[in-house]
């Protein structure tokens, strides 16, 4: 899968990860893919809810050494 942009939001706390992700998403075209790295645990529930409410699709979600990784397709 081709990732069009990677956003490093590690160390940022709520609401900044989603604020940055939204800004990044605004620069992408529909169907393009954003990868986000975040350490704030609130992201686990906020990212899926944000994606759903803005019509994006979370293709993959994983956790490795406290870093949560989301692969999100722009809707």
């Amino acid at each position: 899968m081709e990732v069009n942009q990677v956003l490093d939001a590690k160390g940022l706390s709520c609401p900044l990860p989603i604020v940055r992700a939204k800004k990044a998403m605004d620069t992408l075209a529909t169907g393009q893919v954003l990868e986000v790295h975040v350490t704030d645990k609130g992201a686990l529930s906020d990212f899926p809810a944000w994606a759903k409410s803005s019509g994006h699709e979370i293709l993959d979600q994983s956790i490795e050494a406290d870093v949560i990784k989301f692969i999100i397709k722009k809707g």
Partner: protein
Amino acid sequence: MAVQKMTSAQVARKVIENQPLFILDVRNRDDFEDWKIEGHRFEYLNVPYFELLDGVEKILPKLPSDQDILVVCAKEGSSVMVAEMLSDAGYDVYYLEGGMKAWSSYLEPIKIGDLTNGGELYQFVRLGKGCLSYMVISDGEAAIIDAVRFKDVFINFAKEKNVEITHVFDTHLHADHISGGRHIAKETGAKYYLPPKDADEVVYEYNPLEDGLTVKVGNSKIEVGALYSPGHTIGSTSFIVDNKYLLTGDILFIDSIGRPDLAGRAEDWVGDLRETLYRRYRELAEDLIVLPAHFMIIDELNEDGTVAKRLGNLFAENHGLNIESEEEFRKTVTENLPPQPNAYQEIRQVNMGKLTPDEEEQMEMEIGPNRCAVR
């Protein structure tokens, strides 16, 4: 317009004094549905912060112009962002300092009443989580019952009252919140007590809290007497303080009764719960004032913010004390139970001393309502 912070203590006063407040909760819908700040005259609007990133215009028509608006989120950050956007749009708003995390941690000490010879009994109301802790004060000494994990609140309160903490009790091994009991005892040199039947797996030293144990607080005649009352757990023990108050732990609440399933033994313990509520408690004086370790809904608070009611009134009004058929009682407390408290198995492990999570992890474990009751 201005953004101001509101502390949990200020919100607590609004809850207790029945003041109005408009809460704009910007957490996820699921989180809001699960657990929010409850107040008799509070109004709510729940819109997740990530739906407001393009602007707050769409919610402005839903905001009141004649009452305080408090923006609430999990840890404060998002509520400040939304509050600033509302301020730019011309509104005076507050945000909750420390968010729901701080609200969950806040304790309001309220005096329940005077005891013999100048003693006092205090209830520490944890509004955000529904936990109730107690301090019996008499003649320079204090006993604490069912302390929550914020040990400094109790230690500092004792300092303010100029009393020495001598005894610390847990009525049972808690499953919904992390106990501060043995940590307070360690720091102050007090004796820590736990029912041995709940303590099979604990990995620290404790004194056995057994039926009939009587402890004197101070030199006066105030007695704290233990009454074995199993059912929520097999070790659950109640206290009678000064022949006036019945501290029921998680066995009997104001508008509900304890659930027997949090240690995975509902079928085994339902008989004990029945025995305690329908026979042991029935033998006690009806004028005892019941002081539970939890409340579930804001309606259980009295006008002064305390959670307390005469035992005789509970026999008349509490549904859980008025189920005649044993079979129906068994069904009520073992079937169709509410969801179990967040992380209750891990919390039991912490209270046994087997897990030692850091502050942040403890906070995460305790998120959400307490859910120790069956209505």
